């Protein structure tokens, strides 16, 4: 069911190939695909402008019901349409491997007749460059090809006759009987000639892709209570990994709103240093050693450009600049502006230093080698933290109000120096300034304990001197700032549950952030609460909350950034890496605590 041409955010599944990702709605429409990479301009952007954005629609032309799933252990999506006269299954995949000379990017949709006879219609409306470029449709070897500047998209179909192309759209219909199949493949090219494949090759690549995903899944090591949710989260994360570099995007989309009709619409197709410790922890915890190595080295390479300072986020190619601009797209259900780029890149966020040192510490703790030059840089970053921690910053939530002395930022500065000290003691980084790191860590601790704790609330507070609360304080528990069973942490967890929690939902913070409007509950915070409960010994409470949270995923196991507590509607970008990372981290921690 669509409203004004827009499906619910909850209705989307994602497919991808480690470079690009497409969002597929329950009604069979592909409303989002950027090409050639996740952070490139869109070729299907109906997600952000139902009229002009472009899409690939494929669904029965008669009334129907829908059920869908991922093929087990894969990112190959199966959508089954049931009609009065029969049923068909649509298998969607972005192919990653297989025989033959493959197109630069290939999106394949196979329609399989399951019973009776089902008529379907399909329509491909490519709109290159966020619908800002003029699309031309021509023919090559009898195949319709849409082009704009140096990008091209060919629509190859078998048993899915084209009924002609109109202005910048290619359409057709399919009549599928039980046992028959049809296939539509989009071959995409960017700055190179198109490759047009045979049906046999496309079919073989779909199956090879499914096998490759299943093989990857079989290598994951988690076998705990939430195995299905953890594996789906790992597969979703894998779609956010930019395979050529190892970077992990925060989400596959831009500008899905945190409030319908509101201005909180951000581009998440970048890699946040904030997520680095969770990302590496998840890779290591699930036995993805190769992904962990690639990610760590990408992170250290990207941050080298700005050393010793860190940018809040980096491009998937490691670039440090992400200039923000507004598009002419109307926005999801009128939620404008639609942004590409992210102005938060240039903010000062002190917590990132703690995240980076924690990431290096995890990497070393897992037995990976830290080279001498990287060790030297980590020590220099710790030195920088000694100079910076007294400054106010924008905090983990990237508020656009005046900088503050955010408690979580100070705690993460303490984490940075504590991890640096530990790495130095183990001889993994130079220890010339280790004594200073200890002294400054003690000063940070004194600041937090005297300025950032409210005796009235018996809780740490959002920033020095305030009475507000912030769910990111839970990261202090997760990153071992103090003992998780201490009175101060017990009081803080209780205060957060009391003031920010509503059922399984947790809001990010109380107080203002420099933006108008409101937002939903932030899913990662709920998972952090579950993990904090486990780490403080309340394993049963943690497991109960985790069960509730796992039940909040959409029908294929994905999470957006936020959720509306009143309606359960997803808000924000999808799939949201931090939500899935927090799920994995919480599952590993709760299982670990239960085992102890």
């Amino acid at each position, binding site marked *: 069911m669509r409203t004004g041409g827009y499906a619910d955010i909850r209705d989307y599944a994602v497919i991808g190939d480690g470079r690009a990702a497409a969002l597929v709605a329950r009604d069979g429409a592909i409303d989002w695909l950027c090409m050639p990479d996740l952070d490139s301009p869109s070729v299907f952007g109906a997600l952000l402008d139902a009229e002009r954005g472009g899409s690939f629609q494929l669904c029965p032309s008669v009334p129907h019901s829908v059920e869908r799933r991922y093929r087990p252990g894969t990112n190959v999506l199966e959508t089954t349409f049931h009609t009065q006269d029969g049923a068909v299954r649509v298998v969607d995949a972005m192919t990653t491997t297989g025989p*033959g*000379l*493959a197109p630069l990017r290939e999106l394949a949709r196979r329609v399989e007749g399951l019973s009776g006879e089902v008529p379907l219609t399909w329509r491909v409306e490519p709109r290159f460059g966020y619908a800002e470029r003029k699309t031309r449709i*021509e023919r*090559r*070897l*009898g195949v319709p*090809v849409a*082009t704009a*500047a*140096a*990008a*091209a998209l*060919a629509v*190859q179909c078998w048993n899915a006759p084209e009924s002609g192309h109109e202005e910048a759209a290619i359409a057709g219909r399919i009549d599928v009987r039980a046992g028959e199949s049809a296939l539509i493949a989009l071959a995409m*090219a*960017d*700055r*190179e*000639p*198109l*490759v*047009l*494949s*045979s049906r046999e*090759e496309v079919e073989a690549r779909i199956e090879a892709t499914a096998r490759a995903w299943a093989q990857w899944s079989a290598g994951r090591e988690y076998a705990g209570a939430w195995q299905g949710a953890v594996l789906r989260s790992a597969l979703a994360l894998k779609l956010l990994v930019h395979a050529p570099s190892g970077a992990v995007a925060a989400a596959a989309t831009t500008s899905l709103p945190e409030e319908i009709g509101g201005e909180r619409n951000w581009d998440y197709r970048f890699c946040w240093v904030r997520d680095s410790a969770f990302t590496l922890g998840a890779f290591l915890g699930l036995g993805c050693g190769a992904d962990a190595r690639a990610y760590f080295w990408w992170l250290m390479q990207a941050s080298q450009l700005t050393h010793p300072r860190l940018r809040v986020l980096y491009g998937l190619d490691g670039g440090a600049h992400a200039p923000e601009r507004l598009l002419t797209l109307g926005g999801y259900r009128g939620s404008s502006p639609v942004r590409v780029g992210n102005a938060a890149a240039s903010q000062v966020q002190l917590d990132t230093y703690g995240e980076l040192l924690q990431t290096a510490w995890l990497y070393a703790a897992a037995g990976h080698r830290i080279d001498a030059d990287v060790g030297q840089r980590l020590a220099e970053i710790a030195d920088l933290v000694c100079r910076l921690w007294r400054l106010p910053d924008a905090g983990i939530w990237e508020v656009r109000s005046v900088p503050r002395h955010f408690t979580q930022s100070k705690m993460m500065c303490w984490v940075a120096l504590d991890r640096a000290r530990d790495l130095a003691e183990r001889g993994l980084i130079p220890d010339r300034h280790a004594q200073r790191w200890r002294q400054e860590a003690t000063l940070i601790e004194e600041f937090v304990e005297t300025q950032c704790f409210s005796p009235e609330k018996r809780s740490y507070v959002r920033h020095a001197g305030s009475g507000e609360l912030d769910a990111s304080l839970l990261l202090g528990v997760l990153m071992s700032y103090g003992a998780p069973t201490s009175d101060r942490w017990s009081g803080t967890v209780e205060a957060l549950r009391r003031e920010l929690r509503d059922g399984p939902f947790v809001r990010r913070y109380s107080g203002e952030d420099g933006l108008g409007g409101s937002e939903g509950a932030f899913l990662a915070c709920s998972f952090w609460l579950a993990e904090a409960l486990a780490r403080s010994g309340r394993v049963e409470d943690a497991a109960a909350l985790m069960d509730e949270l796992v039940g909040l995923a959409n029908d294929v196991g994905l999470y957006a950034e936020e959720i509306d507590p009143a309606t359960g509607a997803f808000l924000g970008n999808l799939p949201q890496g931090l939500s899935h990372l927090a799920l994995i981290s919480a599952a590993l921690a709760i299982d670990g605590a239960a085992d102890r």
Partner: protein
Amino acid sequence: MSVWGALAGGFAGTLVLTTALRAGNELNLTRIDLPFLLGTAFTSDRTRAKALGYVLHFLMGLVFALVYYAVFVAIGHSGWGLGAIAGLVHGLFSGSALVDTLLPLVHPRMGTSATAAPSVALLEPPGFMMLNYGVQTPLVSLAAHVAYGTLVGGFIGLAG
């Protein structure tokens, strides 16, 4: 005029031609990728195709430089201007007969007007003046070939 001048000019000219076409890619002007086109005649592996294609492209650059040399010896003249004219003719020939007509006939993975629905993977044919790869392609290609010809002609003249 000397063969060595032709070979040096061919090397420098191919460097500039390749760079110009790549710049055309980056500026979103064209999808032409000559190394990719050449390499895929021998392998379906993308990475190997591009690597092999670059080698072949440079060898062809040297071969064409020797052809230029033969023509200049035959007419008894050489130089930058004459090289530019030869490059223009070369570019027109490449975009029409060579890549549009001859390459699809010998390239095992390129479609032609005689090809039916693909039974094997096919590269998109370039079309007249390689217009299928973008409407700006002829301009980019001609400019690159004129630069190539200018360098070859100039080097041959200098070596004389």
